[in-house]
């Protein structure tokens, strides 16, 4: 008698496991082979001289690729692209606060019917393709034909047209435009943090006579910590992956100001013509930048979870 429930229990357990696998496997196999496996198959290629996707003569060359990317001619493409992307990341990160957090704090104060339509409008640019954002930027600020340029010239606000293809203008305008695209997205992240503050906490602080700055420092900011971490991770990782907006600005054509790291990888990997560098070297560059990035991402996410508990 004792054995019967036990065997049925084991059978049920095995059954459970089988069903778990049946339900998990389809997506997990696709996910694993297209997200995690790429890192694993990239590792052996890092130590070879594989030129392109079809290369039958592959030799083991040790750490030569890691040396090559810091030597001419590769370094002349690699370091400027990294530097450009790093600068972009810093300015782009400030826009998270200039746009996202400011909008969230303002939005949090109003309780009228306006709130919903305003949210809807501010969120619109996030719905548009990055390519579209880049093209729209050219439409507005191209030197001779940009609509905003022509408008400002007509009103007489400026004497000379803004030249978006000028490196120093582009370095500021591009991240601002990307910040504008993500304004609604970041606002939603911060607003999510603000809306989770219990109303009593704020009422209590008001009764105690705390002014806005004190409330911001002691109540809003700690409550938004988790949101800040999420926005930081998304912005840092996203900045190194910026591609669509740059392509819209002509990164694959003639515009050298927006040749970010991702554009360089794409050009070596897929555009082929006119780019020196082997596939293995492109992968080496990708991993040299991405592995530290992943570690930073994981550490920041851990920090966020720790604080949450």
């Amino acid at each position, binding site marked *: 008698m004792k054995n019967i429930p036990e065997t049925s229990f084991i059978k049920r357990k095995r059954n459970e496991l089988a069903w778990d696998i049946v339900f*998990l496997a389809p997506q997990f196999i696709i996910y694993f082979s297209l997200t995690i496996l790429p890192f694993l198959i990239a590792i052996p290629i890092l130590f070879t001289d594989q030129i392109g996707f079809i290369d039958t003569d592959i030799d083991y060359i040790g750490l030569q690729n890691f040396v090559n990317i810091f030597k001419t001619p590769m370094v002349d493409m690699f370091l400027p692209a990294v530097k450009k992307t790093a600068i972009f990341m810093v300015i782009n990160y400030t826009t998270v606060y200039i746009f996202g957090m400011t909008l969230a704090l303002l939005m949090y104060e109003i309780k*009228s019917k306006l709130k919903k339509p305003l949210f809807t409008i501010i969120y619109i640019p996030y719905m548009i393709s990055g390519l579209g954002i880049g093209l729209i930027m050219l439409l507005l600020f191209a030197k001779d034909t940009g609509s905003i340029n022509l408008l400002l010239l007509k009103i007489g606000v400026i004497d000379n047209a803004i030249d978006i293809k000028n490196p120093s203008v582009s370095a500021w305008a591009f991240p601002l435009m990307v910040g*504008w695209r993500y304004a609604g997205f970041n606002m939603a992240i911060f607003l999510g943090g603000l*809306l989770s503050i219990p109303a009593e906490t704020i009422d209590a602080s008001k009764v105690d006579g705390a002014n806005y700055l004190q409330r911001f420092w002691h109540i809003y900011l700690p409550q938004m910590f988790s949101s800040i971490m999420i926005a930081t*991770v998304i912005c840092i990782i996203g900045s190194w992956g910026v591609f669509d907006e740059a392509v819209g600005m002509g990164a694959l054509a003639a515009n050298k100001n927006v040749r970010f790291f991702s554009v360089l990888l794409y050009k070596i990997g897929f555009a082929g013509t006119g780019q020196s560098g082997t596939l293995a070297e492109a*992968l080496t560059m990708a991993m040299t930048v991405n592995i530290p990035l992943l570690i930073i991402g994981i550490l920041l996410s851990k920090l966020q979870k720790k604080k949450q508990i």
Partner: protein
Amino acid sequence: MTNIIEINKKKFVIFLISLILIIYSIITIIPFYFLVVRSFVPTNKSAVFHLIPPELEDFNMESTYGNLATYYNIDLTKAKKELSLSGYINPNKTWTKIAEEHDISSQVITDYFNPYIKYNGWITILTDQRIVRSLVMTIVITFSSLVVGGFLAIATGSVLAGFRKRWHSWIYVIYMLQMIITPVMIIIPVYIILGRFLGLANSYFALFLLFVKGGAIPVMIFTSFISGIPTTLKESVEIDGGNRLQYFIHILLPLTKVPFATFAAITFPIIWNDLLQGLVFLKEEKFTLVPMINALQGTFTTNYQAIYAGLCLSIMPVIIIYLSFQNLFVRSALSGALKG
């Protein structure tokens, strides 16, 4: 007395905040307004500011045959056929002369070319076979991957919900890693896997697989929703002798409509707007809409009007869906942030 001043001051601050937000919203709308206007402004008029689409003069009969093609990107072979002109036509001949020689009234020619000149961008885009096909393919790919991807993520969530086993949380963590892995980071090895190992280069199926692979957001949404469903439902199905599949189809799927809508609202624009993966995995003749708009820059080099009209076309479906389900999108944006 001080109380009234306080209240007025508060009202004034709220008014000021609303004003700032309204101004920002207007600034946000302006670029899209100009995009629409510029899709009606011909390239030769684009160096002048236009607040509204300009009034264009009628087709000029004194313009030469050859100029038509270069200025307005008009398909002259097609025009010749539809106007029943035959034989060789000297590109330097004016249309008045052509009308005389071929015995066609100038009214017919003007009526034929007027729409091409006034709505050049839109006609160029909408009569282009490649663009129409890429629009259709984008719709097909987007909706099929939303349905299949949602279905797969519900299946994943149904197992992971509640983290009944230790290895369930490991799987969950592996899915969460997707949040810090951008497509650009892994595009080269992904191409090796899909293009070389599986032979899916230039195949829509490669894109489909990339769009249904799931990741942090879908798994998060469904896992957290399904863990809120009482386990008694599952047990009652088991008592009635049903298995997991029956529970999944009859109980779980109907219940997950709300999280599915959230999932769709977050995923739809990402799939629709994808540029990189389309560029990498497809050849130009098979491009989805956004890569196609990018390719237009090469085809219609100076016909900005057509590029902007194409961009409008690629943006419109997203905006229409976004505005018609705005409650859903706003809710998803906020809830996605809360769960992150």
